[in-house]
């Protein structure tokens, strides 16, 4: 999450953060690689200071850690640009002209692949296969897959990235829609028109955490994360939801696919079930429309 803001500057390494990552992964298989992957996820690259701390904390030689960090391609020892362009050079993409696309990016950005432009705006990378071979040549610009790229599109892609993909709008179905739900146990509606969130009736449940209990209102807008809670739920904590009418605990068999916390099921009016992750801050949800 912290990546966006500081990936293109030399990172300030927080030793506690590094130690926490080490402690988390030390026991499992692949330990060191998992540690390095997480450090890179935090800082955008592997800062020297962090590697030295990992060496100390894991009681391994710095030579080993440096060796592993430089051996694997997904690790970067340099800070990366604000925007990341990644051209797939898989065989399928190659025979459809990925090499020319790479050269066009290099030409336009004035850098070689693997480098970052001087203004820190763009990093150009190549990857050996993204596994989207049917759509080649594939390029990933700031996490967005662009398929069947032509050299003539390159300039436009860079412009779009500069402006930010979020603002450019590319035909997405943006129209928000609200979901009305009821308790799966007593079938009472959970909608509360008297407490609107995002200009729509909110979803009202009773929440309990650490002996605290209170009312929680969730936005009924699909994709919105807004909520209003009477009791303090610290980020990362898992709460319990109850129906405000029958007081039955909202619990089901499904776990969140993002954080593995339990999810609360609610019946969608008209059919289907909505599952909401119970961990505060986790965007996990599931619309079961089968």
């Amino acid at each position, binding site marked *: 999450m912290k990546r966006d803001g500081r990936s293109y500057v030399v990172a300030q390494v927080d030793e506690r953060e590094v130690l926490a990552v080490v402690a988390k992964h030390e026991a*499992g*298989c*692949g*330990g*060191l*690689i*998992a540690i*390095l*992957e997480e450090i890179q996820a935090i800082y955008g690259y592997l800062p020297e200071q962090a590697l030295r701390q990992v060496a100390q904390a894991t009681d391994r030689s710095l030579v080993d850690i440096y060796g*592993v960090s430089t*051996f*694997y*391609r*997904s*690790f970067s020892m340099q800070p990366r640009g604000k925007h990341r362009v990644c051209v797939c*050079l898989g*065989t*399928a*993409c*190659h*025979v*459809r002209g990925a*090499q*020319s696309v790479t*050269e*066009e990016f290099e*030409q336009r950005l004035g850098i070689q692949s693997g480098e970052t432009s001087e203004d820190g705006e763009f990093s150009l990378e190549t*990857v*050996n*296969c*993204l*596994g*989207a*071979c*049917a*759509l080649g040549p*594939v390029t990933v610009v700031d996490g967005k*897959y662009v*398929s069947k790229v*032509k*050299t*003539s599109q390159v*300039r436009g892609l860079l412009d779009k990235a500069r402006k930010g993909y979020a603002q450019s709008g590319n*035909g*997405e*179905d943006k129209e928000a*829609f609200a979901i009305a739900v009821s308790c799966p146990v007593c079938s009472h509606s959970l909608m509360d028109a008297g407490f609107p969130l995002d200009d729509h009736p909110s979803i009202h449940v009773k929440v309990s955490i650490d002996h605290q209990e209170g009312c929680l209102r969730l936005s009924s807008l*699909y994709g919105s994360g807004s909520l209003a809670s009477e009791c303090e739920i610290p980020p990362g904590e898992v709460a319990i939801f109850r129906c405000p009418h029958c007081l039955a605990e909202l619990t089901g*068999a499904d*776990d969140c*696919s993002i954080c593995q916390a339990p999810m609360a099921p609610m019946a*969608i*009016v*008209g*059919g*289907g079930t909505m599952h909401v992750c119970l961990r505060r801050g986790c965007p996990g949800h*599931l*619309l079961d*429309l*089968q």
Partner: protein
Amino acid sequence: MKLSSIEKLTEWRSVLAKKNASGKSCLCICAGTACQASGSNEIIRATKRALIERRLLDRLSLRITGCHGFCEMGPFVLTEPQQAFYTQVKAEDVPRIIDAALAGEYVEELLYKDPSTGQKYYHRGDIPFFKNQQRTILEANQKIDPIRIHDYIAEGGYRGLEKVLSVQDPVWVVEEVKKAGLRGRGGAGFPTGLKWEMLAKQRSNGGKFLVCNADEGDPGAYMDRSILEGNPHSIIEGMIIGAYGTGATSGVVYVRNEYPIAIKHLTAALQQARTLGLLGGNILGGGFSFDIEIVRGAGAFVCGEETALIRSIEGKMGEPRQRPPFPIQRGINGKPTAINNVETWANIPVIIVRGADEYAKIGTKNNSGTKIFSLVGKIRNTGLVEVPMGMTIKEIVYNIGGGPVGKAQIKAVQTGGPSGGCIPASMFDLQIDYDSLSRAGSIMGSGGMIVMDENTCMVDLAKYFMRFLKEESCGKCFTCRKGTQRMYEILDDITTGKGTLEHLDLLEELAHVVKDTTMCGLGQTSANPVLSTLRYFRDEYLAHIQNSRCPAQVCKPLLSYSINNNCIGCQACGKACSVNAIHGERKQRHFIDASKCIKCGTCRSVCKYDAVEAA
């Protein structure tokens, strides 16, 4: 909910199956990586919105699935039970599709049409791409939502595990796999049953490991990704069965970091299996324990090699080591370890449920079962195809793949990735199996099948693979590290017009030595792209060397661009040129300044009048 016995699982499956068999119509939308790249997320969102707002959920349901294979045509919507197959759908098409599905009708203009004949297909099964396949593994992908274990179980999932736990004989499991004749789908084709038998015989007091190799490093192959994304439980079930047969105690799935969706789905699937008591301690109350963890790779092709993979799992540099000792004897942390690839594991439940004898009937003798190929490159229908072993290349390329895209003729297919070789069109009657491919100088590999036409330069292709290999070699063996660099250097000379006939001999001599003297399988096969192109396409090499000509017009230093009389002076090329090498008045014929031209070919790709020529 924990299932405490086999009976409980059977019972629960029948409950789930009944619920699913309500006869309600359903829209299936693929959310595989390729379809997401084509915009399927927007379709899914639009569908959710329409179903909820219009309160249609009692009549129509939505299923988000993994990859169906026909990635070229994505994003698509498949309706059930109609089996109408709508291709390249946009968000605004969704309401029409829903109305048609409710009324039992079709949205005619969105149905799949054969691009050459224009014929419209109303039933998915009639489309040649699907009709000519035999989908024993991939078929499940369209029937299940990968993050819902209910779907997998309702469709008969974990029945293999049930059978194994009720027979209660590990030796029987290994014998079934042996009898089925399954060969490792990762590349070398080692008999899986034999590998398991060796593992079962190993004694170890510290446990044994099973590994699922999902480090799909071959560029151009993505079937493992699709299975992991679309049907992760089939891998988990396969591994549990394997553990029961071999006495393994822990499992590891080693998966590429480039596959985030696969990692996400697999993580969810493992958690669900654990919650239900299908994984972990005392599985289904049968007193047998096994668990699986995920290890993410960090981008190294060489980690597909067994011993390098083991080192990577141990958190070290992925350098292969000398075998013997084999991983079966000393693998992860010195414990006996058996490694199979994703597709191999996905075949295990099929073998157990259908029975070894039934399974062995698919395919040919010594090469049983089906194989998934990723049919990509210069071909009309790109995507994943699953066919029985022994099908000819011609059938795959023309009947399923639909032949070439444009006017250029198909001249070869490349199989086996960087370790494989090219098979020329004259040999397309070859029946594909492990042995025939290796006789033809290529290998099966993980199943990449890259189609090349007259616009693909084979020398350039060999150079492409050498560039790949010199970067991806671990660098330990001198001959692999330096050999691939030197082969690249020679190929680079040839493609830039500096090659001589002596170069060709040296290249061949070097290729043989690299093959002979490198330690690991990847290094030994690294010369294959050179050797196989030299074997079948020597004339292209000679054209580069003797005539300074690239017949496919790919090698830029041998090319020159010019603009002919077709030019109407639209200025499109001038605007597109990144080095300002094109001059000309508006509505006048333009000219290319050869001294500035970097031969990128952009002008040619933007010209609508065929005015830019390359020679």
